[in-house]
C-alpha cells in the first residue's frame, strides 16, 4: 500500500520484473523492412548484398512498447486511489455503513450514495462482510452480509421525506458492535440534528467501550435548505431554514398551484450568518388561495416543499336572508349583492330549500362556515340564537346587515345597542341630503380604503350613544353617526352594517368600496379556524398523494398511515408529508412544522472518530485509465510499425498529390461531427413557431422526412399560395413545413399531410397534438398519393395502410365521399371533383348530417363547422407544384392540361372552405333575401 494507493492484485506487479527481458526481445526483433517495387531488379538480381547490417529496433519504438507493457501490467494489478482509506485496512472485520437518509440528505444524495458505494466496494475488495444501516428507516437489527448483498441493500436506500430518528438505532448498533468485535463504522452523516435524541451521545461511549473504529464523513457545513410556511396576517409568508450558514445564501422560492403551474416566484436571501429568513408573497387572495405548494427552486428535497391545504384558504361564507325565501325579483335581493361581492375571494354558501331563518342558519353552521352573514334578520328563536352565539364564541365572524326587520326587533347579537326604528335622510319629508361616509379611522380594519364621494346613505338604524360606542365603530358617516360597528366576542367577532345589503337604504352595495370592506371583514376570520364537527371524534383522513424524499408527489407508499383531521405535527415515517383526505376537504402534512428549525449535528461527543469530507472521499479506480493508456500506446505502436514498413508513406504520398482527397477527408471529418439542428438554417420567415406564423395566414405541410415528398409538398403549397394570391382576396405567406411533434400547429388553418409509407409513424405525442388541432377547428388534408396504384376492393396500398394505422388512435368523424352538394364544391369555384396529378382518386370529408326530409333541395349543404379531415389520394401537391419560374414541376396523368387547372381550383376551394366554413352554404339564401327585401 502506497498511502492512499492500493492494488487489488498486487502480485501482478511482479510481472514488472520481466520488462528487461521484453526489452531484449523487442530489440532483436526489428519491424518489417520496407518493400520497394523495383523493375531493374531483373538485370541486377545476381548482385548479392555486400554486407547485411543487422537492423535494430529504434529506441523510441522500444520505449513506446515498454511503456505499453508497463501500463498493461499496472492495470492488471488493479490500482485504486482512495484518499479516505475506507476499506483499505486489510483487516477482515465487518464494516458498518451508516447513511443518513432523511430529507436533509436529499440535496447531495448522489454524492452520498457514491461515497457509500465506494465504502462497500472497498470492503468487497478486502473481502469483509458489510452491514448497511439507513438512519431514517425504522429501527431493525443490523447484520453483516456479503458485500454484494450489502451493495444491493444500499442501492435500495432512498432519502425519506421526513427527519430521521437516529437514536432509535442505537440499540441495534450496540448489539451489532458487541457481536462483531473490532468492527469498523463509516457514518455518512448529513450534518443536521434530527427529531429525537441524538445518536452521537450514545455512540461515543459505545465506540469507546467496544473499540470499534469510527469514520464520519460529512460535508463541512450541511448544505440542505428547508422550508416551513406560515400564513400570518392575511399575507403568505414562507420561512427558509438551514442548519448552519453554508454559503448558499440566495435562492428562489416558487409557488405552484395544484396542477404544478408556477404562480409566483420570490427571491430569498440569508444574512451571511443567519439560519432562517422569511419571504412574503404579495399576491391577490384569489391567486393565493390557488397555491398548493411552495418550494425552494432547484432543491430536490421533501423538506424544501411546503404543501398548502384548504385550511388556509378561501373562507366559507354563509348568507342568510331574513326576507321571504321566494324573491320575486332575485336581482334586487340583498343576497344577490352579497354573493356577487363575496364570490371573488370567498366560498359563498346559501341555504338550499330551507324554509325559515332558523333552518337556514342551522344549515350554514352545519356547513362549517367561518363567516355567517345575516342580512336583515330580525328575531331568532332561542335555540338558533344560542348556536350563533356559540359559533361566534368559537371564533366565527357574524356579519349582520340592517333592514326593516332588524330595526323592528330586539336582538342581543349586535355589537351595539340599537334604537328602535331608524332615521331617514334626504327623503321627501326631510331637509337633509343623503350622507356620505367619513374617512376611515386609522384603527379601523378599513383603514387605507378611500370612500368614494358619491356614496349616499339615505336611511340607517342608529346606535344608542353608549360610552363604548366610539371604540366599536369601524366606519361612520360625515356627521359622526356610526355606520359600521363591531364587537369582539369570545374568539369571534360580531359586525353590523347599519344599512341594508341591497340598495334600498344606500347605494353602498353598488360601490367597489363594498367589496373591499367585505374582503377586510372576511379576512379577519382567518385566525379563527372552525372547530371540526360538533365536538365528536376527529375524522380520519387517508393519504392521497405523498412526497418522496426528493420532494416529488406520488402515490402514497404502503407504509403510509391515515392521520386524524386535526393532525398538526411534522411528518414521520408513518405519516409521510403529502395530501391526506379528499381533494376539497383534506389536509396537508409537511415535513416540518411552521415552528421548526434546523440545527447542526453535534459531534462533540465522538472524540475518537476520524472525520472526513464528503467531497474528497470518492474512490478512484485507475484501471480504466491505465487500460486506455495501454491501448493508445499499442495503437501508436501499430502506426509506427506501419510507418517504418513504408506503408503510411505511400498512402501519404498519394494523398499529397491530391488535395481533393485531403479536402474530402476533412469534409468527412466535419460530417462526422454531429450537425446542429438543421432547422437553424431555415430562413426566419419559414420558422413554424416564429411570431410571423401568428401574424400571417399561411398554408402548412407536414415534413415527413422523405426529401422528395417534402420538396413536392413545399413546391405544391407555394404554387397554391401563388394561385390564391392572384385569384382570391387571400394572400397567404410562404408555406411552412411542420414537425407535428415539435411545432405549434394552432397558427395554421390547413395542414397538408402527404403520406410517406417508408417513414416511421408519428409519435404518440404528435398524434395527440394533431387530435387537439383537429378538435379545435383545424383541418388536416391527408394525401395518400396512391390513386394510380390502388384498386377498389384490392388490398390497401402501403400508403393507405399507413394512414389507417395512424388514424386508428385519432378521433376521426364519420367520412363520406364529397357529395355533389357539399359546400366544398362551391366554396370559390364550382367544381365537381378534386383532381391532382391523378384524377381517379376519391376525396373524403366528414359526413354531413342527412338532408332534411321533404325540405327544399338546397344547392349547397354544410355541417356546423369545417370538416376536420379531408382525405384524398390524388397527389394534390404535385399537381400544384411550381418551380422558381412558375413552371409545373410534375407531369399529370392523362395529359389534359385542364386537369392541372382543375387541381388548382379544387385547392382554392379547399383553402376557402377551411377559412370560411359554411359561409357559402348560407350565401345560397341571398337570392331569397334580396327578393324579400325588394317587396
Amino acid at each position, binding site marked *: 500500500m502506497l498511502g492512499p494507493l492500493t492494488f487489488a492484485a498486487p502480485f501482478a506487479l511482479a510481472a514488472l520484473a520481466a520488462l528487461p527481458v521484453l526489452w531484449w526481445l523487442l530489440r532483436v526483433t*526489428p519491424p518489417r*523492412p*520496407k*518493400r*520497394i*517495387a*523495383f*523493375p*531493374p*531488379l*531483373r*538485370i*541486377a*538480381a545476381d*548482385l548479392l*548484398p*555486400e*554486407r*547485411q*547490417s*543487422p*537492423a535494430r529496433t529504434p529506441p523510441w519504438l522500444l520505449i513506446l512498447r515498454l511503456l505499453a507493457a508497463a501500463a498493461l501490467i499496472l492495470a492488471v494489478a488493479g490500482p485504486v486511489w482512495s484518499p479516505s482509506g475506507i476499506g483499505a485496512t486489510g483487516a477482515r472485520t465487518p464494516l458498518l455503513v451508516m447513511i443518513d437518509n432523511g430529507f436533509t440528505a436529499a440535496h447531495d444524495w448522489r454524492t452520498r450514495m457514491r461515497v457509500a458505494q465506494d465504502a462497500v466496494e472497498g470492503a468487497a475488495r478486502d473481502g469483509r462482510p458489510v452491514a448497511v444501516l439507513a438512519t431514517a428507516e425504522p429501527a431493525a437489527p443490523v447484520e453483516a452480509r456479503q458485500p454484494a448483498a450489502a451493495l444491493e441493500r444500499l442501492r435500495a436506500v432512498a432519502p425519506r421525506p421526513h427527519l430521521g430518528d437516529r437514536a432509535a438505532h442505537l440499540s441495534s448498533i450496540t448489539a451489532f458492535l458487541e457481536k462483531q468485535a473490532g468492527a469498523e463504522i463509516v457514518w455518512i452523516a448529513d450534518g443536521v440534528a434530527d427529531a429525537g435524541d441524538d445518536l452521537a451521545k450514545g455512540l461515543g461511549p459505545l465506540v469507546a467501550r467496544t473499540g470499534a473504529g469510527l469514520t464520519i464523513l460529512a460535508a463541512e457545513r450541511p448544505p440542505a435548505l428547508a422550508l416551513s410556511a406560515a400564513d400570518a396576517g392575511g399575507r403568505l409568508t414562507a420561512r427558509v431554514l438551514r442548519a448552519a450558514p453554508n454559503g448558499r445564501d440566495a435562492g428562489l422560492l416558487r409557488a405552484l398551484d395544484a396542477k404544478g403551474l408556477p404562480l409566483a416566484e420570490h427571491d430569498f436571501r440569508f444574512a451571511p450568518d443567519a439560519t432562517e429568513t422569511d419571504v412574503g408573497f404579495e399576491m391577490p387572495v384569489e391567486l393565493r388561495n390557488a397555491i398548493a405548494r411552495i418550494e425552494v427552486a432547484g432543491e430536490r428535497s421533501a423538506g424544501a416543499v411546503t404543501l398548502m391545504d384548504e385550511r388556509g384558504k378561501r373562507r366559507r361564507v354563509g348568507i342568510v336572508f331574513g326576507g321571504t325565501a321566494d324573491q320575486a325579483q332575485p336581482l334586487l335581493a340583498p343576497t344577490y349583492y352579497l354573493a356577487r361581492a363575496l364570490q371573488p375571494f370567498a366560498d359563498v354558501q346559501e341555504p338550499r330549500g330551507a324554509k325559515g331563518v332558523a333552518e337556514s342558519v342551522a344549515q350554514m353552521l352545519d356547513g362549517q362556515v367561518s363567516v355567517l352573514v345575516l342580512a336583515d334578520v330580525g328575531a331568532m328563536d332561542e335555540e338558533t340564537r344560542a348556536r350563533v352565539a356559540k359559533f361566534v364564541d368559537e371564533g366565527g365572524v357574524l356579519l349582520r346587515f340592517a333592514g326593516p326587520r332588524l330595526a323592528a326587533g330586539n336582538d342581543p347579537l349586535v355589537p351595539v345597542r340599537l334604537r328602535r326604528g331608524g332615521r331617514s335622510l334626504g327623503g321627501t319629508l326631510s331637509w337633509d341630503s343623503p350622507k356620505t361616509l367619513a374617512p376611515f379611522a386609522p384603527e379601523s380594519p378599513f383603514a387605507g380604503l378611500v370612500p368614494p364621494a358619491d356614496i349616499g346613505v339615505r336611511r340607517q338604524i342608529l346606535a344608542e350613544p353608549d360610552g363604548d360606542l366610539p371604540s366599536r365603530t369601524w366606519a361612520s358617516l360625515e356627521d359622526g353617526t356610526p355606520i359600521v360597528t363591531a364587537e369582539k366576542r369570545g374568539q369571534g367577532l360580531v359586525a353590523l352594517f347599519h344599512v341594508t345589503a341591497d340598495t334600498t337604504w344606500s347605494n353602498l352595495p353598488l360601490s367597489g368600496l363594498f367589496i373591499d370592506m367585505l374582503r377586510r371583514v372576511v379576512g379577519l376570520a382567518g385566525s379563527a379556524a372552525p372547530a371540526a364537527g360538533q365536538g365528536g371524534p376527529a375524522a380520519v383522513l387517508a393519504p392521497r398523494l405523498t412526497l418522496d424524499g426528493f420532494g416529488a408527489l406520488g402515490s402514497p407508499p404502503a407504509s403510509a398511515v391515515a392521520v386524524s383531521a386535526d393532525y398538526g405535527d411534522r411528518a414521520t415515517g408513518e405519516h409521510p408529508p403529502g395530501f391526506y383526505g379528499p381533494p376539497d376537504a383534506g389536509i396537508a402534512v409537511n415535513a416540518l412544522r411552521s415552528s421548526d428549525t434546523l440545527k447542526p449535528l453535534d459531534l462533540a461527543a465522538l472524540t475518537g472518530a476520524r472525520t472526513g469530507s464528503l467531497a474528497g472521499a470518492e474512490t478512484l479506480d485507475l484501471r480504466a485509465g491505465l487500460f486506455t493508456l495501454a491501448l493508445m500506446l499499442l495503437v501508436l505502436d501499430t502506426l509506427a510499425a506501419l510507418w517504418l514498413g*513504408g506503408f503510411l*508513406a*505511400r498512402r501519404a*504520398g*498519394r494523398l499529397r*498529390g491530391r488535395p481533393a482527397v485531403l479536402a474530402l477527408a476533412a469534409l468527412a471529418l466535419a460530417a462526422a461531427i454531429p450537425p446542429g439542428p438543421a432547422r437553424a438554417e431555415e430562413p426566419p420567415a419559414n420558422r413554424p413557431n416564429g411570431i410571423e406564423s401568428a401574424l400571417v395566414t399561411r398554408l402548412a405541410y407536414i415534413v415527413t422526412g422523405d426529401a422528395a415528398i417534402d420538396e413536392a409538398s413545399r413546391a405544391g403549397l407555394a404554387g397554391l399560395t401563388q394561385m390564391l394570391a392572384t385569384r382570391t382576396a387571400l394572400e397567404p405567406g410562404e408555406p411552412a413545413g411542420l414537425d407535428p411533434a415539435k411545432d405549434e400547429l394552432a397558427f395554421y388553418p390547413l395542414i397538408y399531410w402527404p403520406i410517406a409509407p417508408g417513414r416511421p409513424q408519428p409519435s404518440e405525442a404528435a398524434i395527440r397534438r394533431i387530435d387537439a388541432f383537429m378538435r379545435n377547428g383545424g383541418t388536416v388534408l391527408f394525401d395518400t398519393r396512391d390513386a394510380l396504384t390502388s384498386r377498389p376492393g384490392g388490398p390497401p396500398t402501403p400508403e393507405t395502410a399507413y394512414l389507417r394505422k395512424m388514424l386508428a388512435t385519432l378521433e376521426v368523424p364519420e367520412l363520406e365521399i364529397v357529395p355533389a352538394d357539399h359546400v366544398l364544391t362551391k366554396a370559390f369555384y364550382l367544381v365537381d371533383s378534386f383532381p391532382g396529378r391523378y384524377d381517379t382518386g376519391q376525396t373524403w370529408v366528414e359526413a354531413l348530417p342527412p338532408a332534411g326530409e321533404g325540405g327544399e333541395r338546397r344547392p349547397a349543404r354544410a355541417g356546423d363547422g369545417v370538416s376536420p379531415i379531408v382525405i384524398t389520394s390524388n397527389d394534390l401537391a404535385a399537381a400544384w407544384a411550381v418551380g422558381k419560374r412558375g413552371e409545373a414541376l410534375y407531369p399529370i396523368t392523362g395529359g389534359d392540361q385542364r386537369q392541372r387547372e382543375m387541381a388548382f381550383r379544387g385547392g382554392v376551394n379547399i383553402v376557402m372552405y377551411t377559412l370560411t366554413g359554411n359561409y357559402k352554404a348560407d350565401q345560397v339564401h341571398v337570392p331569397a333575401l334580396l327578393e324579400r327585401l325588394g317587396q
Partner: protein
Amino acid sequence: MVATRLLGETERRPGRGQTEGALSLAERMPRLVLEARRVSTSLAHGLHGRRRAGPGESFWQFRPFVTGEAAARIDWRRSARDDRLYVREREWEAAHNVWIWIDRSASMGFASDLALAAKVDRALVLGLALADTLVEGGERVGLLGLTRATASRRIVEGLARALVADEAGLTEDLPPRASPGRFDEAVLMSDFLTPLDRVGAAVADIAGRGSRGHLVQIVDPIEESFPFAGQAVLHDPESGHELPIGDAGGWGTAYRRRIAIHREGLAEIARARGWTLTIHRTDRPASEAALRLLTLVAASRGAA
C-alpha cells in the same frame, strides 16, 4: 524516402489522357514536313511519291482513256455509265513506313514520385505523338506486328484503339518478331530491362531485312540513382523475384555500376546495326525526347 508505385494492367493501356497528351505534344512539334528536299526523284521509290497516281492498291482517280493505252486498263464498270471510256488509277503507294513498338509490360508501369509520369505513360505519349507528327509530315505509321502502316488523319486514335485491344502486349517486354521492309524504320520504346542477349536477338530480327531503327530507353530517375538506404526488400513486378538487402546504400553502388554496363551494352547493340539509342528519363519533359526522335527519323531519311 522516395515512394514508388506500380500501375495495374488497365492503367497501362492508353486512355484519353495519353491520347490527348500525345496530340498536344504533336501540335507543339515543329511542322517538319520532312523537307521537300527529301522528296527527290531519286528517292521517289519509297519516300514521298504518294498523293499521286501510281502503282498501289487503293483507288486514286478515274481519268479519261487515252487512245493508245492498253485496253485492259479500261474500267468497264465506270465507263458503262456514259459514252466515254475511263481508266481507274490507283494511288502510288510507297513501301516505306515507320513502325512503332511500345513496351507495356509490368515493369513499364513503374513510377517513383520523382518522376513526372509512369514510364508507360511517357512511352505512349511519345509514341503516339511521334506517329501523329510523322503522319502530318506525310509518312505512314503502324504499330509493329499489330497494324498496317497507314497515313490516316486520325492515326493517334487508331493506334490507341489497337493498343487497347492488344492484351498480349501487356506481358511482352520485347518487340514481336516482325520484318519491316528494307526502307522502313522501327522505333522501339521500352525500358529494355531485359538481359542484353535477348534485346540483341530481337533487334537482329527486326533489322534482318536491312531496315533501320531507333531504340528509346525510358528510365525512371530512381532506376538510375537508387537513392535508398537501410533495410529494404526489392521485388520485381514481372518475375515476382524478391531480394532482401540489409544495406541498400552499399547495394546501390554495385547496382549503379551494373546499370551503366547494361546501358553500354544497349548502345553497342544499336551501333552494330546502325541504329540509334535515345535515353529518356521520366523526370524530363516528353518534348525533349520527341524532338530528338523526330530529328533522328528525319536524319535517317535524309541519309537513305
